[in-house]
């Protein structure tokens, strides 16, 4: 009912776009709730960067699809099963430690990904990735600094940061899944097969955890499905909130 009808090329770009869009939406939901004003600034900045990446990617996906869909059509008028983001970005955070843990796991994946995508054969993808890599470098650094502070801060912050990692680690494997879409994108030069990014991610994250006196989780569970439009139950609520107003005024512009 969803991704099955789109080409591998469109699906690949949508995955990139949806990761950025959905994480921006989650971070935007944290606005005015940060532990200090500087973090309201920092988190909204990250959200703005991600939204700024999502928009040209959605537009590009619409162009590649060739059905005349705009960035807003794709953001506001797709059903949940047609969103191709990884599940990690949709998981609602329950405290600041989870916000940071999610950002750490995701940025450590997105940074090397964007560095390679900067040479994509698709000019839009390459442009977003080149500019985006600089932004994500900051996102990663922000997450690393807070991981150190929380991991090596107080007993409570250590406990919370470790718990946040335990909760989110099951969503990490999905970032590196290969399938027909990623293989086709890698073959054509449009994209990257993310399996190749795994070793670097492991080394990067492990080093941060070690310095932060945190332990790498060993979860039983491995989430999967987001890339095929199978999401967590939290996703429907995120979309209901995001899309409701737009869908309430069919055909209107804003």
């Amino acid at each position, binding site marked *: 009912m969803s991704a099955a009808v789109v080409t591998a090329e469109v699906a690949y770009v949508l995955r990139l776009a949806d990761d950025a869009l959905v994480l921006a939406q989650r971070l935007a939901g944290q606005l005015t709730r*940060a532990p200090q004003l500087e973090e309201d600034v920092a988190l909204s900045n990250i959200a703005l960067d991600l939204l700024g990446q999502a928009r040209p990617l959605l537009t590009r996906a619409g162009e590649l699809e060739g059905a005349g869909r705009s960035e807003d059509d794709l953001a506001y008028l797709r059903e949940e099963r047609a969103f191709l983001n990884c599940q990690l970005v949709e998981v609602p955070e329950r405290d600041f430690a989870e916000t940071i843990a999610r950002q750490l796991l995701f940025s450590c994946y997105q940074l090397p990904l964007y560095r390679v995508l900067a040479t994509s054969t698709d000019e839009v993808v390459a442009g977003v990735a080149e500019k985006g890599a600089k932004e994500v470098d900051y996102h990663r650094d922000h997450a690393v600094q807070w991981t150190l502070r*929380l991991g090596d801060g107080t007993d409570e*912050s250590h406990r919370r940061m470790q718990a946040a990692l335990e909760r989110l680690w099951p969503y990490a494997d999905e970032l590196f899944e290969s399938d027909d879409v990623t293989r086709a994108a890698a073959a054509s030069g449009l994209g990257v097969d993310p399996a190749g990014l795994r070793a670097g991610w492991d080394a990067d994250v492990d080093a941060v955890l070690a310095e932060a006196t945190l332990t790498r989780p060993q979860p039983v569970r491995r989430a999967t499905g987001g890339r095929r439009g199978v999401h967590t139950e939290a996703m429907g609520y995120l979309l209901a909130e995001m899309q409701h107003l737009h869908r309430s005024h069919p055909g209107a512009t*804003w």
Partner: protein
Amino acid sequence: MVAADERVEPRDWMPEAYRRTLVRQIAQHAHSEIIGMQPEGNWVTRAPSLRRKAILLAKVQDEAGHGLYLYSAAETLGVDRAELLDLLHAGRQKYSSIFNYPTLTWADMGAIGWLVDGAAIVNQVPITRCSYGPYARAMVRICKEESFHQRQGFEVLHHLSHGTPEQHAMAQDAVDRWWWPSLMMFGPPDDRSPNSARSMAWRIKRFSNDELRQRFVDMAVPQAQALGLTLPDPDLRWDEEAGHWRYGPIDWDEFARVLTGDGPCNAQRLEHRVRAHEDGAWVREAATAYAQKQAARARAAA
């Protein structure tokens, strides 16, 4: 120096009452910026287009930034941010009452930008020439950003007003709800504003409440006409002789009610703020503990 129209700087001598008045005003202004993030933050996740979402998000982020400058300006007077936040959270310092109204529809993002930011600019532009340097300088930057926000708000309303009938109605409804509270932002009428005279003498304030209010109305009326929206005041009329738009009576009872806690969102705004602060206590403690450990490590290594 105040009398000589020069700037007072942090290290200059200043009368204690002048310092206290400034601290109170700058703190209230800073609190207004951060409480003011809530009514607009309420619509970021629901913005009807990605472009509007980005603009709104950036605007709310700017407000957090304004809060930061203003707390810094207050800190030059020997108080610290944590102390001022405690006073806010305890209900012992105020923020602008306008933020005790709810944002009910997307059009409120337009009305807040156009009217609330518009009124704020009229209030604040004179402060860019106020007698206390750090406050004046913070205000220069803030006013520049707020002009930008005001144009964005106007643009949101303009688009809605010229959109579908539902969008036009939404815009009109928002203006109907925000107009009078915006006029109240200039404070009570001059004959009931006891502190104004002193603030004017000290050049913390440069125009009276009623003067500023009139300036705002004179700006807003033609803008409303350009928007194709009406202002909810049957008494509004052009006074040819004076060269001013005359407005009807303001409901000062409502103003007093909202000021003293009986506004639609007073409790909600403060609770939200206090909860964010309390939920974040462990994070701030962790940052302090980490900084201390790092400092100790640096000393040990030295």
